[in-house]
């Protein structure tokens, strides 16, 4: 591979290089250029294109407060804490991995041992002033308990809003109405996760 090819290895074959129009050298050439440009009708091509778009009326506007854009499942907005489908109790086991991996250090959790000697999360908060929405917490969570939502309208009167456990946890009403959606995005199991599971090798 020559140096030129190496430098242009991101350019697909068939790419046409345009050196630019040659500048006119004599007055006669300049005059020819002017006449050519004047009579070529390029201006009318421009007029036709905008008129065509007006007739087609293919409007791309989203009238925002009335219409909303559907976000991709991989969009990383305000976090959500999910519940177990079977029992409705919180998925979070208080392992603290999200707290550890968080690179902007914005997750805080408090755990205690309850009367059944199980570890439960008493407090869980994310400081959204610091959060950079990198998605590491959702990726590292072994229980798929903390995931990213698609809520992007985060204007509020209080800095602490959205970031407390009560804000993020699926409300019981929503859960009972069967409206807790499994998160298909960042860090979640793929659709064919079951097939990808292999038997534990016990032979050795």
């Amino acid at each position, binding site marked *: 591979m020559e140096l030129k090819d190496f430098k242009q290895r991101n350019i697909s074959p068939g790419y046409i290089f345009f050196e630019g129009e040659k500048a006119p050298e004599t007055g006669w050439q300049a005059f020819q250029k002017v006449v050519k440009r004047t009579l070529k009708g390029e201006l009318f091509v*421009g*007029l036709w294109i*905008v008129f065509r778009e007006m007739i087609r009326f293919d409007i791309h*506007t989203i*009238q925002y407060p009335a219409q909303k854009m559907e976000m991709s499942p991989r969009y990383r907005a305000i976090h959500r804490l999910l519940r177990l489908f079977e029992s409705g109790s919180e998925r979070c086991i208080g392992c603290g991995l999200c707290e550890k991996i968080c690179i902007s250090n914005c997750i805080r959790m408090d755990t205690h041992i309850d009367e059944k000697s199980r570890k439960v999360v008493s407090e869980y908060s994310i400081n959204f002033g610091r959060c950079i929405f990198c998605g590491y917490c959702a990726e590292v969570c072994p229980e798929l308990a903390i995931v990213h939502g698609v809520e992007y309208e985060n204007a509020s009167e209080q800095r602490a809003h959205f970031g407390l456990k009560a804000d993020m946890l699926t409300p019981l009403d929503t859960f009972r109405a069967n409206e807790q959606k499994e998160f298909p995005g960042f860090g979640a199991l793929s659709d064919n996760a079951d097939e990808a599971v292999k038997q534990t090798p016990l032979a050795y």
Partner: protein
Amino acid sequence: MFETAVLVETLVKAVIVVAVVAGMAGFATFIERKVLAFMQRRLGPMNVGPYGLLQLAADGIKLFTKEDIVPQNAVKPIFMIAPVIAATTAFVAMAAVPYFPEFTLFGYVIHPIISDINVALLYVMGVASVGIYGPLLAGMSSANKWSLLGAARAVIQMLSFEVVTGLSVLAPIMMIGSLSLIDINDYQVGGITHWLIWKQPLAFILFAMAGFMETNRAPFDTIEFEAEVVAGYATEYSGMRWGLFFIGEYANMITISVLVSILFMGGYNSLWFIPGAVMMLIKVSFWVFLFLWVRAAWPHIRPDQLMWVCWKVLMPLAVVNILITGFVLI
């Protein structure tokens, strides 16, 4: 008694023209936003009223109720009167422009022209040139460098295009032998083939270009082009004083549309089954639409290019056109 009647008639006509044209100028802003939006695959104003129709009223209320600010170092009286000059001249120019064929109302024959003077075309062009004092005084009194640049550009632009306007209409005037717009209109009676656009195509193109320059519309909107001179002469203006500039610009647009329609496109003569008044409305609407259309499609040119094209291309072409017309007439 007779003089009183003429006075009353003229006053009524003047009030109607000012009211209708000011209303049309306001409505044109709405149309402009909508047309530009559709051409750029947007919707334009949609929220105020059905399809955003009341946006016009909202803008009006905003303009009227805004604080009237005069900058600290500005020359106050000149600063305050400049927009009035711009708007007034735009409306005064309409005094000699006929809009429709004459018609009978309650037994009176009404000529829809405020004053049929025999130098109407000269008068309209003269008053339109005086209109340049609006931007010039505004820019020089604002104590702002962008305003000053805008004013300077306004003057060089006017010096360039006025020559082209005058020379380009000279050829049609030589053929018609009159400066009255009614005579010019009557010269083109008899269908599309009698329109002056076929006899004077070059003059038509030159005059249309000069019209775009006169109204400061794209592609010749050098004097208030945001990317280069913020808002040009209007940088320091706000509220209704800025609104007057705006109304003046749109009134100018309508005047130029009427002028081109009368001069080159058959004026208010009826065509086939279409009455003259409707023909006039169609032509003026088309020209106003063309102003918006061109703004959506074409980039604007630099001031030096504008001067180049005016002095080195358009003016020689206009002179050649006059010469050819003269030889043909002889």
